């Protein structure tokens, strides 16, 4: 019994020596579990950001800004100099950082409550001033951290903790397409909406993120924003796989996927 096992182990080692690594943890992502719910999109989005920063070789000169929302602890997962700021104020904080450190790469990572509700003024004016920043906007159509309340991006009919009968336009308004709003500003040089609903979509999201960072590296004269439609199975009250389908079939009707500018 003993001999064959040894033989088996020996075979494994030989195989490992000849094996090539085709997939690794990117060094910008820390080796630890996240606090996110099963099926949440933040884990994928974090990884894409980490891969892009790694591939562009800018880990040592990048400063990230975590939002108030589910991703508030992003600095626990991304191995970068990072700051956590007041709800919605990331683009103002980023302005203060970039203006005083033009050779650093500054990005904010914000949810739909942070960017499209309480921080509307800050994002619009950062774009309006043509700040040379990279903004990652995670749109999951709901307030996650506070318990699944309506976000400005909640779609009509969507049931949330504060729209128990489904969002009605009369009284609760329409889903806010803030990327379209930002795209009309001359100071926004690149705006693209992506999604995490499938491999092809995820690859496209990564390409968009890489472009958005590259523009800042190249001193492009304005703000880049990548909106990412991201699943929240917990507060959509769906299975993770159904949530991916819902992005494709419902959410992307209200928030069309594709490049809006640049």
């Amino acid at each position: 019994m003993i001999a064959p096992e040894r033989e088996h182990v020996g075979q494994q080692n030989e195989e490992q020596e000849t094996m090539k690594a085709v997939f690794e943890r990117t060094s910008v992502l820390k080796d630890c579990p996240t606090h996110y719910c099963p099926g949440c999109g933040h884990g994928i989005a974090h990884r894409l950001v980490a891969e892009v920063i790694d591939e562009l070789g800018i880990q040592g000169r990048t400063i990230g800004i975590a939002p108030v929302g589910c991703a508030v602890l992003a600095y626990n997962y991304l191995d970068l100099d990072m700051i956590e700021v007041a709800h919605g104020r990331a683009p103002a904080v980023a302005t203060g950082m970039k203006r005083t450190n033009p050779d650093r790469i500054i990005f904010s990572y914000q949810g739909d409550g942070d960017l499209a509700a309480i921080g509307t003024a800050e994002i619009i004016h950062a774009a309006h001033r043509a700040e040379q920043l990279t903004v990652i906007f995670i749109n999951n159509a709901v307030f996650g951290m506070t318990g699944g309340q309506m976000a400005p991006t909640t779609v009509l009919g969507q049931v949330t903790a504060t729209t128990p009968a489904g969002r009605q336009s009369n009284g609760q308004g329409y889903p806010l397409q803030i990327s379209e709003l930002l795209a009309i500003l001359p100071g926004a040089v690149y705006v693209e909406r992506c999604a995490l609903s499938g491999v092809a979509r995820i690859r496209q999201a990564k390409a968009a993120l890489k472009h958005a960072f590259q523009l800042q590296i190249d001193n492009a004269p304005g703000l880049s924003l990548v909106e990412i439609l991201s699943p929240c199975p917990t507060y959509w009250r769906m299975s993770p796989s159904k949530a991916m389908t819902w992005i494709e079939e419902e959410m992307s009707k209200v928030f069309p996927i594709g490049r809006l500018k640049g």
Partner: protein
Amino acid sequence: MSQRVLMCGNEALAEAAIVAGCDAYFGYPITPQNEVTAYMSRRMAELDRVFVQSESELAAINMVFGAAATGKRTMTSSSSPGISLMQEGLSYLAGAELPAVVVNVMRGGPGLGNISPSQGDYFQSTRGGGHGDYRTIVLAPSSVQELADCMPLAFDLADQYRMTVLILADGILGQMMEPVTLDPKPRRELPAKDWALTGCEGRQQNIVRSLWLGEGVLEAHNEKLQAKYRQIEANEVLCEEYLLDDAEIVVVAYGVAARITRAAVDKAREQAIPIGLIRPITLWPFPQEQISRSAEKFRLFLTVEMSTGQMVEDVKLAVAGKAPVLFYGRSGGGVPAVDELLQTIKQLTITEGRT
């Protein structure tokens, strides 16, 4: 700039900040401090430093937050309603222990109030202002020269203790022109900013945060802040004492109110009234000790403010019932005149019975 020049307070404080090494100014226009923003827009560009006119005071304080986090010397200025908007950022600056300088050229309130000078923001300034258990150092100059001198001190205190230093001026100090000399003051020996966000090249990541989850973690953080505040209370109190040696009556006043009071004290002395002045220069830390140690010596305290009575509460706490503490104040842009104060002092000496 070491020669004596004639400047208004707003411009003097701006130039003094530049001399003190301010890397970045962020601000939003509001009367009566608009000269600061205008001056900074011109001078910071000349020096290739950073000036941004923000979309709101909320954005301005958060731009300060960002620049401070990267280790830069940074400031904003505003007036009362704008400072109210900044309270969120001031709380986060305290939590994250970032150094910043904020100037409040106070005007009348509450609400939009008016644009006249006032000292109505004492509570807001000395009690923290935003949410949570924190303090800001508050400097209250009473002349344009002292306002200018406060700037290098404020930046040094901010860097030394990693916190906000608030300079509490008012519409008179901001607008009034006086001769001023701006000499670069000898700097304190300051700790290295090894916590700053500069990109993690060659070292472990730095994180600037104010969120402390986990049982007992925030309480420990708050206790660390409190220990820092106690150190400041022990070491950084500034206070001017005037004609106290033979005084029986002591007036406590700060800022422009103290300056007017000083003239009234001089006039009262001419009429043989034994009166002196205590002028707190730091409002927090408050000169509690300076007032309380001599409280029994004096027959009467009078607090004079351009408010309906705010600092008087701190004076009462310091006096702790050892002598009567009276109050005289004007608010909403009302400024006490010297003769008006003299009359008040004379009436008090009669009603309280001179010994």
